[in-house]
């Protein structure tokens, strides 16, 4: 963890954030917009797979995915600015923050979930379901998990700045 922190701190991002007070808020704006794009596309497909909005073919909704991926990329870049450019406590303050750690864990789980979806053939079966059809239980489990993980990412993302509240609630 010290190695990662040293690498991130060596980027000099903190000096940029300190020198230009608009960098942080602008990255936050993009981080929120990216979040909405990700939820609006991936969440849209998840909700349809779960059975809401029948009449929408799942394979057609998947055409929206590049926008969700774009949102994820935007948030990875702006997220790196936050961690590497943290003016108070450096990147270590993020890496040691329980809310941040849980957020990263949930992103990892969401990634594994996507890999399971596409590598096991669940996605292919779901895409083959007709416009008004019902997706297989396995696809519903993946879609439900996806929604839970991404909503969790939002919650723990918001908690990063209020990590003490989480620690207090957990009795830590």
């Amino acid at each position, binding site marked *: 963890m010290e190695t990662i922190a040293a690498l991130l701190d060596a980027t000099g991002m903190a000096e940029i954030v300190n020198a230009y007070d608009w960098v942080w808020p602008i990255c936050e704006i993009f981080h*929120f917009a990216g*979040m909405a794009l990700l939820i*609006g596309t991936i969440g*849209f497909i998840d909700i349809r797979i779960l059975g809401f909005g*029948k009449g929408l*073919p799942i394979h057609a909704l998947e055409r*929206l995915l590049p*926008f969700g991926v774009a949102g994820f990329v935007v948030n990875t870049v702006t997220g790196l600015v936050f961690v590497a450019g943290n003016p108070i406590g450096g990147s270590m303050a993020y890496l040691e923050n329980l809310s941040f750690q849980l957020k990263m864990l949930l992103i990892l789980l969401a990634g594994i979930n996507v890999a399971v979806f596409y590598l096991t053939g669940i996605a292919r079966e779901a895409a083959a379901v007709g416009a008004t059809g019902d997706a297989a239980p396995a696809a519903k489990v993946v879609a439900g998990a996806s929604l839970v993980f991404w909503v969790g990412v939002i919650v723990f993302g918001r908690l990063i700045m209020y990590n003490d509240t989480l620690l*207090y609630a957990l009795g830590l």
Partner: protein
Amino acid sequence: MPQLIANIAAGTTAGAESGLLDAMESSAFATWVRESPSLFAYTGMLSLHAIGLAFVVGLSSAVALRLLGVAPEIPLAPARKFFLLMYTAFWVNALSGIALFAGSATSLVENAAFLVKLGFVVLAVVNLRLLKRFAFDEAGLPRNGEPVPAVAKALAVSCLVLWSAAIIAGRLTAYPGLLGKYFG
């Protein structure tokens, strides 16, 4: 509240507004939101506000993108049901927003970015209702393969613009003084 009553009794309306805001801010509920160490208080309201934002802005943006030509194979008629989710997400944000507002009412009414944000949210919601009417309700609904009417496309563009503006102003609410420094 007593201050408000005192002001009214004294026949002055000058302090009425701030009296009401003071009363709101010092109410038991607002104090709980602001000061309780519970995860459901301030952080819970903030989390709900972010989740609601993601769903109302995200889903309406996805629909706007479809109207603008992305993924034309998505049929419009069944997508209409998703407005229910958008409105639900909006109400989550209206309620969590009221809770967050109550917690710091007196400073927020003097925050220009916050007032601008409220304006954009109102416009975005009106826009969303118009979008539903002109692109999804019986008469306006283009059949499969039919081109999307120009009015629906224009509303899709304004949907994206208004939500973006609301997010920008909403974020800048946390930085009072920043706008004034550069544009003041």
